[in-house]
Structure formats: C-alpha cells, structure tokens
C-alpha cells in the first residue's frame, strides 16, 4: 500500500491552497478554522506569498479582494461569526467580478454559538447572506482528500468565472484526521483568469464580457486604466442606473455560473435502482453511506445522493437524478436548509423528509437507519 499521510481537513485545505498557487491570505483566526490560518502563516511566506492577520473579518475579505485585483490567487478562512461579517464584501466581489476563495468551517450558531461543535447551519447564508439578487458558488467536501481537491477546484472556478467561491465544511471534516494520498494538480489543471480583450487605451472596456459572460479584467499594474465599483456599472466600469443594464448584469452574473454543477457532479452511491434515497453532504454523507449499506442488507433499495456543489443548483439534473426515488430523506446538521432545494425540485408525489439535527453532535448511522425503519419501509427490520 502506498504511503498515506495522516492529516486533517483544515490542513488539507491549506495544502490544497498552496498547491493551487495561493499567494495571499488575509484572515482573522477563528475556531474551528484556525489551523488553516496557522499553517499558512508559516508556509505561505516560505512559498513566496503574503500572510496578513487582519483586524477583523470584514477587513480580511477586503484585503483578499485587493490582492486579487492585483492578480494574485487570494483567500481567507473563517467560521459562522466571521462569515456573517464577510457577507458585505462577498456581494461586492460578486458584482465587481473579483475572484476569491472564502473557506467557512461551520460551527453551531447563531452568534458565537458553540465555537467547537460541528454544524451545517450556514448553507442558506451562503446562498442569501448578502443583499440583492446574485448567483453564488458553494462547494461542500466530505473527506480530507476531497477538501484538498475542492480547494483546487474552488480557485479554478473563482478565476475562470471571476466570482467569489465559498468552500464550506463542518467541524468534523475540518478537524478529522484520516489517511490520505494527496495528488497535487498538474500545471495544466490550474485554470487561468480570462485575459483582457483589448489593448490599453481610452476605448478599453474591462467589463466587456467574454463568450462565457465573464468580465475580462486585467490585474492592477498591467498597464491598463479601469474603474472598479460596487455600483452597477457599464463595460468601462463606470456607474450606471440604466434599468436594462442593471437587469442584464444581474442575469449575466447568475448565468455565468451555470456550468459549475456539471464540472463537479454529485456522487451517486448505489443509486441505479434506489427508491429510498438519502441526500446528504459533508460529514453526514459519510454516515448516510453506511446506512445505505445496512438497508441494502435488509433488502431495501437504498441509495445516497451527495451533492458536492450546494450552490448553484441544477434543478433539472437533480429532478432527473432522483426520478426513481419514492422517498427522499435529506439529512443535515441544521433545521432543514438544503431540503428546501430538494423539495422544490421534486414532484409532489415524491415523499421528501427532512432530518435536521442541531445541538452540536454529529448525525450517526444508527439515527439514519432508524429513520428508514420509522418510515416503515418494506423489509426493514426495526431494531
């Protein structure tokens, strides 16, 4: 057996960022994400990057946005209370089309809540936390190895589509150590930002979108003069209140995210003939997999549908993937957040059940298996 390393999810995130070419980290350490800052504070400078501990989370994301405008791959890492403070700048980065990565290691909220206990309570905040209509990107890994790989993907998506990306996982995934073999991305696996379309000059339009609907900003210092603002803006970047322009920009910024679900398709485990399906992400999906195996032993056609992209949602694909399911249990460490997506996408005939667990203790295999028994599925022995 090849040599496996014993590392945590937070460590894998830091390593994945370094392997992706991270050059700037601005952050404010907070449990349960602190190891990401801790590791990068020593390793990023040695890799030629800059690490700054900022005065708070608003300033953290502000510094990241500035570094990104300078052309660098930049990120921050936080947890619920800090994620709340970052919502303003997430909206700014969306509208101004500034690539950046925000890692949110979820703990129990609201407010300072339980700093050391796992949760998945920030899923809807990632979608709607910032004001105004905007498309959002949130990725959800379920293992240490996947934290590493999705950190690389997150930077790629951020750069190619010029958008903020949120990588969110629960405290269990962040702190769990497991044996992994990490495969660094090859140079050709790292996606570049779109290049400016025109030469510097009075006619240059930094916000003229390419075929994918993505602005083609140069980096500060590239020799171009252009304007960046959180106001709606024309292709030169100057403010506009033109209703058509505003409407079209909102639509374009949402539409440009459409390819993401196909880039990172969901994991479908024993789904081909499943009529009883768990939908779960992060740590919960790990125990759901065990529950599926146990139900299969009892003759129940059970399966697991594990989204790796929580936002944006491809509703048509979700509906198609779950077309055979008669009962769908959406298990989450919150009061039922992503279940709303599933319920909205599926036809009324599908029985959608929310299993939302709060309190700071992880969901267990026994609990998920027990739900199936409680639903009186055929051939399940009640334990």
């Amino acid at each position, binding site marked *: 057996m090849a040599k496996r390393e*014993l590392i945590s999810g937070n460590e894998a995130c830091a390593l994945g960022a370094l392997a992706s070419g991270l050059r700037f980290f601005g952050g404010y350490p907070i449990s*349960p994400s602190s190891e990401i800052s801790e590791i990068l504070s020593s390793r990023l400078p040695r890799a030629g990057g800059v690490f700054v501990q900022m005065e708070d989370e608003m300033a953290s994301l502000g510094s990241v946005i500035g570094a990104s405008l300078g052309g660098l791959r930049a990120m921050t890492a936080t947890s619920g209370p800090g994620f709340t403070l970052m919502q303003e700048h997430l909206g700014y980065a969306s509208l101004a089309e500034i690539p950046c990565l925000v890692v949110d290691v979820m703990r129990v909220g609201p407010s300072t809540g339980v*700093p*050391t206990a796992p949760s998945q309570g920030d899923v809807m905040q990632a979608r709607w936390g910032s004001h105004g209509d905007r498309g959002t990107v949130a990725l959800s890994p379920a293992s240490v190895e996947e934290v590493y790989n999705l950190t690389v993907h997150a930077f790629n998506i951020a750069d190619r589509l010029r958008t903020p990306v949120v990588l969110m996982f629960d405290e*269990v995934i962040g702190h769990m150590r497991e044996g992994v073999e990490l495969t660094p991305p090859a140079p050709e696996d790292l996606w570049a930002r779109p290049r400016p379309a025109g030469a510097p000059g009075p006619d240059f339009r930094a916000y003229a979108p390419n075929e994918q609907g993505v602005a083609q900003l140069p980096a500060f210092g590239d020799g171009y003069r252009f304007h960046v603002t959180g106001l709606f803006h024309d292709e030169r970047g100057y403010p506009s209140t033109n209703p058509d322009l505003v409407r079209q920009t909102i639509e374009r910024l949402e539409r440009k995210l459409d390819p993401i679900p196909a880039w990172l398709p969901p994991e479908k485990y024993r789904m081909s003939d499943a009529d009883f399906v768990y939908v779960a992400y992060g740590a919960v999906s*790990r125990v759901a997999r065990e529950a599926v195996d146990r139900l299969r032993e009892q003759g129940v056609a059970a399966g697991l549908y594990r989204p790796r992209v929580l936002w944006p949602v491809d509703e048509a694909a979700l509906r198609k993937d779950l077309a055979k399911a008669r009962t769908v249990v959406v298990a989450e460490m919150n009061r039922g957040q992503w279940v709303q997506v599933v319920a909205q996408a599926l036809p009324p005939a599908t029985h959608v059940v929310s299993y939302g667990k709060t309190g700071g203790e*992880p969901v*267990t295999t026994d609990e998920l298996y027990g739900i199936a028994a409680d639903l009186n599925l055929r051939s399940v022995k009640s334990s």
Partner: protein
Amino acid sequence: MWRKEIRLAGSGGQGLGLAAMVLADAALRAGLHATIMQSYGPEARGGASRADVTLSDQPIANPWFPAPQILLALSQKAWDRFSPKLGADAVAVVDLDRVQGAQGANVWALPFERTARAELREKVAANMLALGALGVVLEHIPQEILAETAQSRAPKGFGQVNRTAVARGWRLMGEALGGIAHADSVGP
C-alpha cells in the same frame, strides 16, 4: 468488517495527542484505516486532553463516537469523566498511580509513569508505555510497527526512548494478561 473506538484521555502535557498520532499512523502502516478527533478549544484549555482514535479494516465513515470501546485514562479527572459511559464490554487501561477506584473485569491498572521514571529515566515516556499496552488490547497492529512508528514520530532525541517504551508497555500488559504481574499492579 471490524471497527474499534479508542479514547486516549488525560491532562495536557501527557502527550496524548502524540500517542493518538502514533497509534493512527501505525494503523495506516499496518494497512488499516484510522481517524483521529482531538479535543481543543475551551475543553483543552481546562487542562483536560482527549483524542478519539477509530481503527478499522474498512474506510471509516464516522470518526465520532459517544463512548469508546477502549479507554486509556492517565488522570483521575479523565477516569471520572469517561468511565461512567463505558459499556459492559468496554476495556479500560489506566495509570496505576494516577487513577484511584478503577475496578472491573476489563479494567487494567498498570504503572506506566512509575516504570517510565524508574527504567527509562523519562517520566514523559509514560504515554508510549500506555500505547504499548493498548497495542496488546487492540491485537491488530504488530508490536514492531507500533514501536517503529513511535520512534519515527518522536520529538528530537526521544526516538529510542519511545521505541523502548512501547516494547516495555507491551510487556507490562502481556504480563498482566498472563497473570504474571503482582496483584497490586493489575486490577482486579
């Protein structure tokens, strides 16, 4: 498929975090799967230290458990806190001089710290003695792999001490199980 849930508990500075890393890493080297969840934050700052290690021959879905199958307690506080939750089949290994009142059919009280001080001249090697004893209970990790891992993961200058400590702990437990040890060093 088998799964073993082990809690290493004591106070800060006893090296339980390192012991967990050595145990899980040795399991990987033995071709097994392992996860660690470690206490931190306010809980760790209270002086208590805890690391939960899960071992299996299959990939581990859930690294979390409410009560362990095997408890190592190196402090009275750790014993008092975690022993009430132990199931009937659970095995406990405690430091003879650190834990009072640890009794039961599956409770083993061994002189880890005393032996570390007397024979290895390093009180801090008690964690590796305890790990050696756990190795006997676990059955799935060969002594040589555990000792080798303890050596390679040791702080600078402690490699040989830790290797020897694992072997010595292994022997302590072996003697206890074989009924060779003195009555007062093994309970009951």
